[in-house]
């Protein structure tokens, strides 16, 4: 391969529209060219910043054992499970990595609610790791992830989901973990065309480039539609045993799962992130509006997942538990919020987020009474406890349903 051809090859791999799989050259000729390039094609370094070149050498040196090691991003869904399984089938040592952003959808987040307690409470990523017999490293990225949510370089999707920035961020974190732990490459369950923002043919090279993973990022489920990556060119994995899935259909993945004997797997309808949920995004946007800036803490985004959220006035909102499970959960936060609870009738705990005047507290008490068993009573006694711990009681008339405007509900 001459120098110009090598540059074309790099451009294809890292940003330009890729060549069709295998190009237009006969298979035997491609193999001969690869053999002449040696075990580690120099061409890769043309696009590598000096820092990454050093990292590349470091990981290569660290990977001198015969069994190659990959770190697989495990979301808990079917695609990443299959991608890891494909690598295991090729004799690669696989360990999983899962990032906790604070926005992750987990079965037992919903299981706080009494009505959802019959559902499985498992963490799907851990469950996948167990099924595959691999280790799983769960990494807390809550603080670093804030910048992804607040300032996404590539913007938001349909709601407040910064999917492309998120994918680049996670692959970058996986690349850092790979380098720190002497692994050789990264695997994801991405499929071309599966997601409208982060899993498109034109955005996949963006993720490879912006994460710094470059051609150490392998997508086994659609690899044959993409230029060969380092693990394929080096023969660590057999490209012929990778897949060419594309589009939104799940049938190829389900067929592959059946071939592997995998029958139980999670298929979250809206992905694994609350930011793809319209109602959740509305609540987060409301939080930012109320604070006058795009800022959040973990506690804020956890509370957005729990209870009814009503904003009767711009300067405060009420978080009202919907059942015993949410009551118990919100009890854990009561010392940090002014909170209300009916004492004359059974009813929910409600937290106040913001500054409430005496008049606001009366309105909050009437709202709290509205959601308890005393909603039809003439008067309900509500205990109001300030953040400092002092408690007083209010005797209020519960608000009627028609006194609660729809636009109070977030």
């Amino acid at each position: 391969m001459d120098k110009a051809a090598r540059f074309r090859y790099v451009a294809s791999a890292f940003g330009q529209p890729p060549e069709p799989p295998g190009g237009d050259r006969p298979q035997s000729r491609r193999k001969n060219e690869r053999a002449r390039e040696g075990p580690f094609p120099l061409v890769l370094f043309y696009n590598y910043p000096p820092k990454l070149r050093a990292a590349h050498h470091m990981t290569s040196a660290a990977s001198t054992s015969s069994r190659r090691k990959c770190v697989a991003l495990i979301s808990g869904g079917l695609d990443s499970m299959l991608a890891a399984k494909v690598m295991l089938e090729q004799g690669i040592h696989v360990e999983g990595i899962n990032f906790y952003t604070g926005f992750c959808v987990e079965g037992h987040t919903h299981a706080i609610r009494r009505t959802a307690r019959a559902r499985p409470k498992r963490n799907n990523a851990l469950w996948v790791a167990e099924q595959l017999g691999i280790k799983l490293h769960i990494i807390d990225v809550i603080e670093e992830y804030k910048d992804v949510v607040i300032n996404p370089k590539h913007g938001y999707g349909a709601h407040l989901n910064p999917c492309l920035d998120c994918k680049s961020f996670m692959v970058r974190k996986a690349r850092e973990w790979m380098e720190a732990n002497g692994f050789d490459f990264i695997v994801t369950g991405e499929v071309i065309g599966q997601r409208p923002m982060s899993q498109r043919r034109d955005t996949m090279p963006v993720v490879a480039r912006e994460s710094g993973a470059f051609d150490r990022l392998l997508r086994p489920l659609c690899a044959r539609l993409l230029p060969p990556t380092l693990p394929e060119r080096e023969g660590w994995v057999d490209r012929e045993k990778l897949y060419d899935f594309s589009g939104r259909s799940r049938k190829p993945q389900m067929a592959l799962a059946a071939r592997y004997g995998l029958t139980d797997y999670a298929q979250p309808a809206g992905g694994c992130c609350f930011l793809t949920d319209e109602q959740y995004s509305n609540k987060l946007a409301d939080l930012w509006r109320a604070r006058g800036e795009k800022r959040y803490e973990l506690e804020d985004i956890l509370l957005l997942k729990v209870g009814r959220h009503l904003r009767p006035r711009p300067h405060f909102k009420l978080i009202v538990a919907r059942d015993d499970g949410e009551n118990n959960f919100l009890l854990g936060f009561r010392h940090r919020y002014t909170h209300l609870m009916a004492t004359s009738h059974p009813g929910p705990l409600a937290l106040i987020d913001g500054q409430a005047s005496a008049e606001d507290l009366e309105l909050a008490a009437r709202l709290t009474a509205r959601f308890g068993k005393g909603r039809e009573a003439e008067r309900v006694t509500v205990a109001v406890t300030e953040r400092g711990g002092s408690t007083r009681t209010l005797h209020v008339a519960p608000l009627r349903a028609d006194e609660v405007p729809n636009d109070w509900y977030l």
Partner: protein
Amino acid sequence: MNRHVLDARYLLCPLPVIRVQNAVARLAPGDILEVRATDPGALHDIPAWCRVHGHAVLSALETEGEMRVTLKVGAP
């Protein structure tokens, strides 16, 4: 062998698991870690994490709304 207690109450999973993972990384094989949590998922997730990483779960039970998991750190 030392005994340690980790308070992971009022955290939603997987945070209790992450706290356990970080705590175990600082412990020696044979050490005992007792975890307190309020998320019911901890009763499933902490033992699952222990199984994939080779640590022994000595007990996992719910008492008055609180989950308690006791584990013994395995060899690295």
